[in-house]
């Protein structure tokens, strides 16, 4: 399986996860969507030196990973892709913010190191909860939630189509690369001279595909609005789930929970 086919397989596996019939999957999508937004906002707002506060916030994604039975290993493999970008953002902190905070066995730990670690954890947590949202909620339901939140329709349609057609685009790219490699068997990768024409091909095919899909949609009455089948009703469990997590988020964010727990045991 080449890398592109692997990517398609991974997207499809996320779709399979999101379509399961589990407790979290059945929570109202708007509740999950709002909780994710609140969670991300609270995590991002944590002070850059408050490493304990960020670690405390990890309770939510850990809970979701366990309760939804989502494989830890696969999840962290996916995170591995974005980790270098997060590290790149925080890597300069130790150089610019070099006030020594404490030392461990003569190793000086500066505030920059702490802020870098905090930033990395923040990055991981925010990406992780976003991933967990799409792994527990189908894209249609996420778009339904956005619609309920009165987000611009054009934005919602774009999200829906980017998600839906990323697979088609990858498939097209995969076909082009397969055709290339079959005619260049001893070559590793793609010769840079062919990059331009391959990308051009991909662009032309994508435009063609997009045009055909739009034609197909307009032939079936599409006029810019998406209509959703669901008018999902809120259950008692949705409200309870929301209140409990909101309480926990605020508690974790504004109280030094780890410190309090630590003090009890030490």
């Amino acid at each position, binding site marked *: 399986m080449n890398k592109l086919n692997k990517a398609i397989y991974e997207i499809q596996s996320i779709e399979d996860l999101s379509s399961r019939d589990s407790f979290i999957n059945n929570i109202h999508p708007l509740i999950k969507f709002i909780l994710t937004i609140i969670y991300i906002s609270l995590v991002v707002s944590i002070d850059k030196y408050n490493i304990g506060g960020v670690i405390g916030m990890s309770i939510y994604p850990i809970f979701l990973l366990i309760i939804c039975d989502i494989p830890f290993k696969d999840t962290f493999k996916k995170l591995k892709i974005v980790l270098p970008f997060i590290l790149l953002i925080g890597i300069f902190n130790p150089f610019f913010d070099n006030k020594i905070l404490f030392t461990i066995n003569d190793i000086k730990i500066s505030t920059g190191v702490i802020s870098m670690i905090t930033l990395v954890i923040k990055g991981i947590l925010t990406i992780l909860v976003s991933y967990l949202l799409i792994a527990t909620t*189908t894209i249609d339901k996420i778009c339904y939630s956005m619609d309920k939140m009165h987000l611009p329709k054009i934005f919602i349609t774009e999200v829906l189509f980017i998600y839906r057609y990323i697979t088609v685009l990858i498939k097209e790219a995969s076909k082009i690369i397969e055709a290339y490699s079959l005619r260049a068997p001893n070559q590793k990768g793609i010769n840079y001279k062919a990059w331009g024409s391959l990308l051009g091909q991909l662009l032309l095919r994508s435009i063609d595909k997009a045009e*055909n899909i739009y034609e*197909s*949609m307009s*032939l079936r*009455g599409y006029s810019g609005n998406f209509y959703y*089948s669901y*008018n999902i009703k809120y259950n008692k469990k949705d409200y309870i789930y929301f209140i409990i997590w909101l309480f926990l988020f605020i508690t974790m964010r504004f109280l030094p929970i780890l410190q309090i727990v630590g003090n009890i045991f030490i």
Partner: protein
Amino acid sequence: MSHIHIDVQNLSFAYEKEEPILKNISFTAKENDSIGIIGANGVGKSTLLKLLVGLNLNFQGSIRVENIPVEKNTLSIIRERIGFVFQDSDNQLFMSNVYEDIAFAPRNYGLSEEEVKIRVENALKLVHINNLKDKKIHKLSGGEKKLASIATIFSMTPDIILMDEPSIALDPKNRRNLINILNEFQHLKIIASHDLDMILDTCNRTILMAKGEIIKDGDTREILTDKVLLEANNLELPLSMQKII
């Protein structure tokens, strides 16, 4: 007398500054006609079908569907009456699962969710794919995709169906299934295809095209048994006829 559903007069079409794809096409199609459009690659079969639903309005001549001219401001009325099946099913299926895709058109036409459900179930039944109702689009085989894309137009309860190469990607059993479905459809259907055996099984009238023009318009059996005519237009006798003639 049958009601005229499609009336095409002196239709010509070319993409900007290019050679004309269609030249002076004229024909009428009645309520219960089953018309096969045949011809070699690039003769303009798909283009003709696309023009009938107004996917390109830069044509010369006139197209009328149920006496309504195909123009920008009449497209929504016309498209509500015509179901169009694309050659590539990936263009037709864009929702997450089969149910949602079949429900797309009825929802756009403002039907209640209850009516949508009935329409979807009827369409699934017509195409014999009830078992695929909740299946994810990406998990469908090529043949299943084709049948699902046909179901997406049946949910519109169209008066007219246009199909561009409908038997592509179908195995013999599904192809036979498709032929039966088409024969059960009692309204006007226009099918562009290279599958001459399918045309023979489903259409009572055939339009033979070459170089953007209609070469012959007549009885299917008459045209598809005319070896000289077919070969002169880069076609062959249908397989079932090759043994006989």
